[in-house]
Structures are given as C-alpha cells and as structure tokens.
C-alpha cells in the first residue's frame, strides 16, 4: 500500500525536477490566476469599506415640535427602534442641539453673537435615524406619517436629502453588482486559462501516459505523479503570489488610503494574512489538481 504511494510521490518530484520549463510555465499561469482572485478579494474589501464609509455619513433627522407630548416622543422612539431597517436612533434634545451648535461654531463669534440676539433656543428636539441601507429610509419614514404622530413631528429632512441618498444608494449597489460580475467574469477567465495550460501540458505527456498504460500501469499509478506535480505547482504558485501581495500591499498602502478615504490595504493584509494564504493555497492546489484530473481522463482510456 505504502510502496506505490511512495513511488508515486517520488516520481511526481522527479518529473517536476526533470521538466523545469513546463512547470515554470504552469506556475506562472497559476500565479496570474491566483493574483487575479486575490485582487478581486482585495477590490471587494476596498469597495465594501468605501461603501460603508459613505453610508455612515447618511442619516435622516426628524424634528419634533417643542411642545410635543413626552409619551408620544417615547412612542416614536420605541416604534423606530423596533423597526428592522433601523440601525440606530439617537434622540437629540433642543439643549443638546444648541450645545452642539455652539461647540461647532466656538471659533466664530459672529454666529454665537447672533444666537444671543435671538434670545431663545432656536433648535428643535430631533431624532437622528440611521438605516441599515440607504434604500430603506422611505420605508422607515412611513411610520411617522401616522395621524397620531402628527402632533409631535414638525418636519423630516428626508425630502431635501432624498435625491442625494438615492444617488448614493444607486452608486453603491452598482459598485457591489459590478464587483460581483467582475469577480465572476475574471474568475472564469482565470479558471479557463489555468485549465487550458495544464491541458496542454498533459496533452504533451499523452504518449507517455499511453506507454504507461500499455506496460500495465493502473489508472491511479499513471495519474498519481501528475497530481503530485499539480500539488507542487499549486503550493509554489501560492507562496509566490502571497509574497507578491505582501509587496503590493506594502508599497501601495499610502496611495490606496488616499484614494478610498481611509482603507489601509497593508493593515487589511496583516489582519487577513493567514486566511488569504490558506485561500491562495487551497485555490492553487485545487485549480491545478482538478484541471489535471479532468485533462488526463481522456488519455487514460487506452
């Protein structure tokens, strides 16, 4: 049992050593495929980060009447909190709004002076609502359209922000969909290119496969060394790709931070290094071994 396995592994390594050009070409193609997949992973993380950052900046304020009954205010808050679409509801009292305004304009005496001229607090209590997705504001705000809340709600600034929110929603969902389609398309290209390279390499060995079969070798005895060669190529390709990505992330980090408004690619690489390597290793070995198994099938029918 172990002797054939030992021989298969040993032949795999020997063949790898004896046909360096063929294997270097396969590794090169595998590195390209793995880089493509890893770039897509990085690209999607970057997009997700940017989209989340943009979404963080969107909220809708619901201004309440100064004399709104407390229990109604509580009821609105409860109603909003209970909605699945709502991520966060924050109540800002008129005093807090005033303090915040003062803090924001503390270096502008003219504005502070004008506040004093007004005499009373010009701000209204409000709810700051953050939805889980920018597309959900309209649904959330239908809650406030109920008749009983009319005594408490003064205005909602949604109408003013609506075009902007919808535009952002469109862009972010477009980016997500585009990223997904790009991943599928380029992923398919990578798989096909790898498969084709390995197919050609195996075709090159078809004569040898036929001889092995005619000498009386079983299918697994013929297939085995090719699988070992595939594993070696996959492992080497994933190590090379991982190292290339380390360099890429290290050197491009400052530029990417500036481009995405804070996405630190090198920090991302640091926190995902292990899973990225496991992903590349699995994909590298999987792609080459699977391509090898599919490509060798027809030559074993002798």
């Amino acid at each position, binding site marked *: 049992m172990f002797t054939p396995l030992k021989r298969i592994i040993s032949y795999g390594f020997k063949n790898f050593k004896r046909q360096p050009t063929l294997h270097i070409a396969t590794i090169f193609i595998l590195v390209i495929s793995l880089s493509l997949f890893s770039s897509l992973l990085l690209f999607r993380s970057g997009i997700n980060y940017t989209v989340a950052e943009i979404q963080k900046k969107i909220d809708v304020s619901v201004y309440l009447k100064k004399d709104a009954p407390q229990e109604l205010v509580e009821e609105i808050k409860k109603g909003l909190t209970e909605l699945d679409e709502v991520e966060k509801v924050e109540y800002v009292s008129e005093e807090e709004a005033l303090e915040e305004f003062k803090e924001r304009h503390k270096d502008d005496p003219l504005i502070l002076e004008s506040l004093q001229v007004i005499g009373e607090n010009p701000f209204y209590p409000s709810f700051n609502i953050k939805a889980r997705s920018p597309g959900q504001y309209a649904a959330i705000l239908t809650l406030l359209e109920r008749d009983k809340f009319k005594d408490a709600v003064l205005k909602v600034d949604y109408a003013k922000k609506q075009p902007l929110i919808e535009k952002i929603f469109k862009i972010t969902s477009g980016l997500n969909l585009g990223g997904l389609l790009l991943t599928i398309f380029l992923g398919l290209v990578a798989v096909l290119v790898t498969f084709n390279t390995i197919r050609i390499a195996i075709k090159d060995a078809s004569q040898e496969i036929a001889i092995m079969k005619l000498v009386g070798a*079983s299918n697994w005895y013929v297939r085995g060394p090719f699988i070992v060669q595939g594993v070696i190529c996959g492992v080497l390709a994933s190590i090379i790709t991982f190292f290339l990505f380390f360099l890429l992330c290290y050197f491009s980090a400052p530029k990417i931070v500036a481009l995405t408004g804070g996405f630190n690619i090198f920090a991302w690489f640091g926190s995902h290094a292990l899973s990225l390597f496991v992903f590349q290793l699995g994909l590298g070995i999987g792609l080459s071994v699977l391509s090898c198994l599919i490509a060798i099938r027809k030559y074993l*029918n002798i």
Partner: protein
Amino acid sequence: MIRFENITKIYPPNIVALEDVSFEIKKGEFVLIVGRSGAGKTTLIKLLLREEEPTGGRIFFEGKDIFSIPRKRLSSYRQKIGVIFQDYKLLSAKNVYENIAYAMEVMGACEAEIKRDVPKVLELVGLEDKAYNFPAELSGGEKQRTAIARALIVRPEVLVADEPTGNLDPYHTKDIIELLQKINSLGTTIILATHDRDIVNSLKKRVITLEKGKIIRDEEKGELLF
C-alpha cells in the same frame, strides 16, 4: 492460450488492416508472424494488447474474451503480456534503469526485487553502462535493447515482439533471437512479428504469413518465401 476468432479491423474511411483472421497459439509455443510492411502485423499486436478494438471478431486469452475485461482490470491483463514495441515506446522522462524498473513497479514488485533483477537484465542486453542515460541519449539499437529488457523483466506469460531486431546489428540480432529461444524453452509463449528472412528461416518454428490483412499460410517449421 490465445485464440483469434474471425478478427477484422477496418480503419476509417475504408482501410482494411485485418480481414477475418483466425488462429490459435498454444501455451509455450514460439510463433512467427511474418508479412510485408502494412500486412497487419502491428495491428494484430495492438488488438492483442487491447490498445484498439476490432471491427469484428473476438480474441480469447486463457479462454476469456479480452474485450469483455472491464477497464479497471485491463492493467492486470496487460501485465501478463510483455511487449517489445517496434517504436520502443520508452518513457522519455525516465532513464534506462527507471524504464525497466517501471514495468516491475506496476506489478507491485518491492525495491529489493527491483534492485536485484534490473542490473541482471541490463547485463543480459548489454546496457549496464547506460543505466542512467535517458532515451534521447541512446542509439536506436540501445533503445530497442531497453525495450527488450523491459519486456523480459516481468517474466510475462506471453512475450510479443514487434520487429525487435529491426535496429540491431547482426551480432546483437543473433543474441536477441537466442535469448528469445532461451526464454521460450523456459515455458514462455513467444509471438515474434518480423520480416527478416534470415531469422525466419533459421528458427524453423511455426510461421503465420499475413498478406493484405489475411492469413495466407500457417505452417509448422515454415519459411519466408518472398
């Protein structure tokens, strides 16, 4: 032991390689298959190895129709037949030693057996000093002797040789033929396809003559007439 029953092989579009060929070879026999190039000798060997399927007819090996053997068990069947191919069929990525050892490995021989037997066979065919050369570094005759060594090493029940002396000088040819005779005397069935008149006439064995895919003569102690 081996029985060809109405074997016909037609290659597309309409090239008849073998037509209604029937004969039987008994265990321990030494049979020569002779005929001009294109007479169907190699096709006959390909069919016996089940490298190809016939258009019609059946081949029996030890009473069993070889075309009914499931693919999974084909390797065990082929291990019983040692073949010296006309075009050598050596594994280019393996050296002479490994090519010969490979035939033993597929049969599950252990390392000790391989280390014991391969040098002996290499000596027998006179390739001791070429053991670590690759096929690309060998002459035609050396390749042929490697192929012979690979076929011999597994001590097959049947040894099929397709023009095994085609690339050998008379000195080596004589050696190889003597070797085949010796193996035959130990009980191995030999099928030798050749068009070398000297070999055929000196051996005085059964000769099956093929012409344009048909058996035109099958005689004991036959001679090559053309």
